[in-house]
């Protein structure tokens, strides 16, 4: 503030410290207040209580045949549920993980090898990869292929080729019974 024509800035030296202290205290107080007021107006953009409460989805697995996949919605996102064939499981388990961009064993990504549950969002820039339908292109590794920027995922949903940095994410889920799971 270059408003140096205010008379108190040329006041006597003895009053100076106390006055400066007062001014600083008031300014600091005001800054703290402004900060606390800002928080609710930022935090209101976070998910609301009803949105958070809706964060689980239950899926019935009984209609899914080996080799088939379904897509369910969880938190507004697609979740891939794929019942893998023995060949697909073997393909996923046989990969030498040292060759992977995001090294992870297949066991670490599934609870039961038959059921692969993934968040269906490409880790590159958020498109939904193809490969759920039998007619889809599944990429060079038999898993999924993201058409936006050409990322290839294998039968464990791991990134094998293309720009994506990470494997397809595995959501938190629990088996309620042999034939049903709850995601979230």
């Amino acid at each position, binding site marked *: 503030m*270059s408003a140096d024509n205010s008379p108190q800035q040329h006041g006597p030296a003895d009053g100076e410290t106390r*006055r400066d202290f007062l*001014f600083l205290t008031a300014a600091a107080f005001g800054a703290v207040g402004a900060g606390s007021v800002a928080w609710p107006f930022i935090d209101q953009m976070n998910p609301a209580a009803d949105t958070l409460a809706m964060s689980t989805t239950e899926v019935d697995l009984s209609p899914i045949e080996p080799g088939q996949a379904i897509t369910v919605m969880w938190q507004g996102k697609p979740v891939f549920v794929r019942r893998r064939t023995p060949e697909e499981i073997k393909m996923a388990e046989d990969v030498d993980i040292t060759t992977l961009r995001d090294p992870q064993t297949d066991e670490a990504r599934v609870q039961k090898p038959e059921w692969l549950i993934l968040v269906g969002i490409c880790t590159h820039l958020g498109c939904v990869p193809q490969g759920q339908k039998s007619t889809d292109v599944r990429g060079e590794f038999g898993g999924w292929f993201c058409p936006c920027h050409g990322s290839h995922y294998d039968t464990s949903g791991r990134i094998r080729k293309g720009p994506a940095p990470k494997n397809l994410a595995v959501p938190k889920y629990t088996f309620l019974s042999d034939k049903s799971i709850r995601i979230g």
Partner: protein
Amino acid sequence: MGSKERKAFDNPVIEWVDSRLPVFTMMQKEYGVFPTPRNFNYFWNFGAIAMVMLITMIVTGITLAMHYDPNAANAFNSVERIMRDVNHGWMIRYLHANGASFFFIAVYIHIFRGLFYGSYKKPRELLWILGMLIFLLMMATGFMGYVLPWGQMSFWGATVITNLFSAIPLVGDSIVTLLWGGFSVDNPTLNRFFALHFLLPFVIVGVVFLHVWALHVTGSNNPLGIDVKGEQDTLPFHPYYTMKDTFGLVVFLIIYVAFTFFMPNSLGHPDNYIPANPLVTPPHIVPEWYFLPFYAMLRAITFDFSLYLCGAGAIGGYLIYQYAWRKAPDECCKSLTVPLLLAAVVLGVPGALLAFFKDVPALHGVIDMIPFKSVSLMPAKLGGVLTMFGSIAVLFILPFLDNHPVRSALFRPWFKPAVLVLLVVFIVLGVCGSKPAEGFWVPLAQIMTLAYFSFFLIAIPYFNNNEPVLKLPNSIHEAILAVPKSLVIGLLAIGLLAYAPSAAEAKVRADSEQPSPSAPEDKAEVPPVAEEATPAEAPATAEEGAAIAPEAKEGESEHAAPASEEAAHPAEGAHHAVPLPRQDWGFQGPFGTYDRAALQRGFQVYKQVCSACHSMKRVAYRNLSALGYTEGQIKTVAAEASITDGPNDEGEMFDRPGRPSDHFKSPYANDNQAKAANNGALPPDLSLIVKARVGGPDYIYGILTGYEAPPAGVELASTQHWNKYMPGNKIAMPPPLGDGAVSYEDSTPTTVDQYARDVVEFLAWASEPEMEERKQTGLKVIFYLVIFAGLLYAVKRKIWAKVH
């Protein structure tokens, strides 16, 4: 502002910017060194306060718009979602709702200050007109904002106000259809009101910019109303007035947050917590308190303008023109005065009989004899609309009506009492507007309307020619030396601070009985009287000033209290045959909390009794955690309900056990089924019942315990019951509670009274689940603001020490 006159800044970054775009030079000139009269009192704070309120409204409004859904089917739900689920949503919404009121309070005080000290006069006419334009835009914005929650008052307020335009001859109905985008207020209306409610605040910002620009061309007026003569009369705006404004602002904010956090609905209407229903109008349609004086003037014109009334009015207008507007009446008029007066009386008597005494049975014989009585030059409806808009129009043209050479009322012996009377008239009009349009409120509103217009159209022109011109002080500087200024300012500050709690207290009394729109107005308008007295009389002695301040304060609290009591009584009289007894609820008051055990018992009563007929759609099972239930218990409670979900993969709906995220299951599939099952009476949803009824918890408790045998001679239909607290006494709900109907797990007595208390506690929680958090936050905020105000006051005193 050429770069040649620019003084270089030390900071190289600021200098780099400023030499290319001199924003810092401009700020420095307009808000740094800007020469400002040194004798402002605290009334000059309200411009800055209004500015801060405008910004507050925009910030809270934009954040609300992120969650609001402007769709007739979902608007009410989305507002309730903001209140219940959005993080801090309740706070943002209450800040916005009460912020509107406090914006108007600041602006009303700001306008009255301009009126009192003659700030509208030359050379500040355009400044005043721009201000009035802001006021008008604010009214439009406030009205449309009140429509958005889509409650009963929203809907019917929108219907009534848009129907004003139907008074326009010939094209009125087409204009109303255009405004609605349909044949009634409906979804298209809501959509466009939302769009305009979002747009207009930014238009206001634009006009505020022009308003401030115009102010910085002419410079500020001051309490003495005399021109600034030189440097000894002024101070740089910063730090003197930046600090004084900030201090005043924080004091104002304390009152604002007190309302927001401790009585957030006291300025609104319970009816607006009932979703809009195009088939039922609430018994009392009342606009927001800040429109009440204008609304009273609209309703004051209850009569058609007959030939006689118009004739008498024309002659009266001519005489007023000759005697009040002109320095001296024309010679020819002077000689005609007596015959003209006679003519006015002759015409005026039948005119008045037709207009005001039509319903007096004793006069029917006389009225029947009047010829041509069915000839009307203007219907009452159009008359009312023109009167209302005219009441704002006179404010616009005030600078041209008043050309008395003295500005400040302090030096105008006639104007000063007149403008204070105007203030009283305005407040009385506000009270009239809050009452049902019946009984003596109608003639009172009519007289007050006449008085309001007389001030502008008779008194002001008359003063122009006849009010003596007093000798004014030579300069601001000289006048200040004669006054022990610091003492006066100190007293004013104490007055303001002491005023806040007393007003709030009066409000607490009023609001638990009925939200009384008149009280805040007193609050807005009364301080001017108190403060005005002090600078005016202070020049005499300090003691006198000291004596005046408390006196004025006393008068002011006296004023507030009867007004609010008044507000409560007639409404109760109209509603309840027996006055509603006040109950002692643990959740009321600034420290009140819900009793968890009572909440759980109340939930049990709700579940076993009320929920058989009443839905509670806005509460979810997960919310029960606030009652002290564990997650497991909540899951069990939720799973007892069977919720329809779907469609499943086969495209069919299916039933599944409830989950915590589900909302309470309604007993009926829809309203029609509910009506059919209850003899045609719809059991209201209970989620908001405590907020949606005048009397709140006391009313619900009254209804639950107020069943009696009907008095002798009263016939009840077989589906009706007699309840002493029900408006109209006839109620379709059979007595819901009986002793021992619900068995409590603990040793709490199983009586009707205990059940009623417990279930009211539970329903109060369902209406205001945020209440405890709200009060706790409020205490913190007020604690902070009070300390901050103290610090700022110390800073302000230090800075001003040199000047005094």
